């Protein structure tokens, strides 16, 4: 991969890795009496290792002038492989956590193996490790193809991929050691947050510079979603993580806000992380790979624009539905509820748009498991947004909140929507990236599809049942007007559902392993010859071909 970099680019990269090694060492020294020291060491080791590789291959031949005629896909390949790595790890830990609720003593008497520390490893692993890498990789792919321009440079994509994964590693290893800020989906501590902010700015600048080089006058709508994902996540991340560290030698920090403000900010972040990370970004994926795979343009481009602004706008108001009947002022709760219900409109517009695109290609959906992944994703997107709007209604929320129903809802979205659309995109993209005719085995895609679908169904139904039973038991009264059940009775009643969930989760995890195997075998297939070797895929910059070809 280094052979794809020019001399100057190698030197810039070298400078950056040395900088990483030095800052890691400094952090490690400052935090040597604290857990912080380990993360300093982690960054330092990564920095030295990368520096070593860069120096070792420094005198490899440089790429020829042809390089600017091709899209720059190396970082995308790495991103896809990493996404698959994280989905295997993340769902494995998820299933482990699920079994811990069945066998609570399976912790080896070790802190790192207890429920409270493993759970964030699962959530961060799947959301950031799997989802994040998949989003970064596909956004690099989509932005190049839809603008017909190469990534603006060849160092910053690596900064984004490597930096982001170092962040994920710090997050996951930190929870195991007991480093956490306790804010849901924003658990990493202050230094990791600062690190991610830098990475994210590089990502944003790279994306903007690539858009600025585009040969197409109009920016294809998928990029809108990716851009909204990048920008809003930055705003959310910075505001929600404002904190004062105990010292520069301590991993621990204290959140700048307290009580109600902190809760509001946390759920404003939490819900919009769902909106812009788990929804907007993946809609970007959907708007490119689904039409591509189906071979049909998106059903209504207009509708995709209207729903875009609807989503960007409405989501920001909805966060307070996580805090119904709490100490949050009443009007904020009502506002959150109202906007959550309105959100159904752009959400269903998007889901409907995706399904209507397939209308007329149902034969393909039947035969092609990859396309079926994407169709099912659109269906689950529609279902979970409907459910979300329903759960945001205060009386419904009074029943669902704090119960497994929320968990069921989250996983209808996370497994059914986020993971399925990503698997669809991965199966579409992998043969293109590695220049293969097709995936190694279509059968295995089919197997994966059914494992994922059945696993999701078992999971979601188990959690709906347990959640509703739990909620009803908590509020049930007997004839003499006292509460009918003690809390522990409701815990005991969950047992069969926890077992079912853990089994469903295992099926889903197996599917992810099948996917990893299939991709690995695909990479090893012989490459196909380029269809048209004389014609460079990229128009020369500023040439009119792109425009005229568009007619």
């Amino acid at each position, binding site marked *: 991969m280094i052979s794809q970099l020019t001399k100057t680019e190698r030197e810039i990269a070298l400078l950056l890795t040395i900088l990483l090694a030095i800052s890691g060492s400094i952090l490690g020294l400052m935090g040597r009496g604290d857990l912080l020291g380990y993360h300093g060491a982690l960054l330092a080791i990564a920095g030295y290792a990368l520096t070593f590789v860069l120096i070792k291959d420094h005198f490899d031949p440089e790429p020829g002038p042809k390089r600017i005629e091709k899209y720059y896909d190396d970082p995308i390949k790495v991103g896809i492989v990493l996404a698959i790595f994280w989905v295997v790890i993340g769902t494995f830990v998820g299933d482990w956590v699920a079994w811990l609720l069945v066998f609570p003593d399976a912790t080896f008497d070790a802190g790192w193996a207890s429920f409270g520390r493993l759970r964030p490893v699962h959530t961060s692993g799947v959301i950031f490790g799997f989802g994040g890498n998949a989003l970064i990789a596909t956004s690099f792919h989509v932005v190049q*193809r839809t603008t017909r321009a190469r990534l603006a440079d060849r160092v910053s994509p690596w900064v984004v991929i490597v930096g982001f994964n170092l962040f994920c590693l710090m997050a996951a290893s930190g929870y195991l050691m007991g480093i956490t800020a306790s804010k849901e989906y924003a658990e990493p501590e202050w230094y990791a947050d600062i690190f991610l902010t830098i990475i994210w700015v590089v990502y944003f600048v790279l994306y903007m510079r690539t858009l600025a080089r585009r040969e197409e006058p109009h920016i294809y709508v998928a990029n809108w979603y990716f851009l909204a994902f990048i920008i809003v996540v930055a705003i959310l991340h910075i505001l929600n993580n404002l904190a004062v560290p105990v010292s520069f030698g301590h991993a621990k920090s204290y959140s700048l806000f307290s009580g109600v403000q902190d809760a509001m900010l946390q759920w404003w972040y939490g819900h919009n992380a769902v909106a812009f990370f788990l929804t907007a970004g993946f809609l970007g994926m959907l708007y490119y790979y689904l039409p591509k795979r189906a071979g049909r343009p998106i059903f209504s481009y207009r509708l995709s624009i209207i729903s875009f*602004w609807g989503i960007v706008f409405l989501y920001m108001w909805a966060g307070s539905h996580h805090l119904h009947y709490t100490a949050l002022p009443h009007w904020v709760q009502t506002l959150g509820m109202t906007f959550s219900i309105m959100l159904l409109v752009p959400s269903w517009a998007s889901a409907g748009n995706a399904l209507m695109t397939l209308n007329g290609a149902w034969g393909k959906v039947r035969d092609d498991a990859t396309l079926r992944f994407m169709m099912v994703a659109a269906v689950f997107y529609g279902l979970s947004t409907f459910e979300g709007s329903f759960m945001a209604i205060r009386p419904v929320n009074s029943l669902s909140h704090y119960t497994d129903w929320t968990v069921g809802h989250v996983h209808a979205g996370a497994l059914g929507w986020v993971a399925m659309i990503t698997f669809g995109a991965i199966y579409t993209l992998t043969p293109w990236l590695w220049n293969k005719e097709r995936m190694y085995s279509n059968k295995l895609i089919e197997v994966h599809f059914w494992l994922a679908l059945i696993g999701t169904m078992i999971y979601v139904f188990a959690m709906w049942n347990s959640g509703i039973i739990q909620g009803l038991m908590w509020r049930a009264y007997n004839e003499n007007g006292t509460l009918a059940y003690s809390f522990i009775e409701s815990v005991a009643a969950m047992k069969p559902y926890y077992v079912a969930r853990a089994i469903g989760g295992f099926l889903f995890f197996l599917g992810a392993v099948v996917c990893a195997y299939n991709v690995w075998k695909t990479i090893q297939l012989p490459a196909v010859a380029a269809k048209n070797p004389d014609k460079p895929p990229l128009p020369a910059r500023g040439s009119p071909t792109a425009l005229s070809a568009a007619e």
Partner: protein
Amino acid sequence: MTFDHQTLAAIAKSYGLIYMMIVFVGSVIYACWPSNQSKFDRAAKSILREDDE
């Protein structure tokens, strides 16, 4: 400049609504404007051209 809670809440409830209407109407007009139609059609089809992969 300091605002008290009442004022901020009132602004949120009134101008917030107007702002929402403007964004909504604006994006619908943009999406439905006749002369944008051909551009959108072309964009929707542009990704299907062969040489992308």
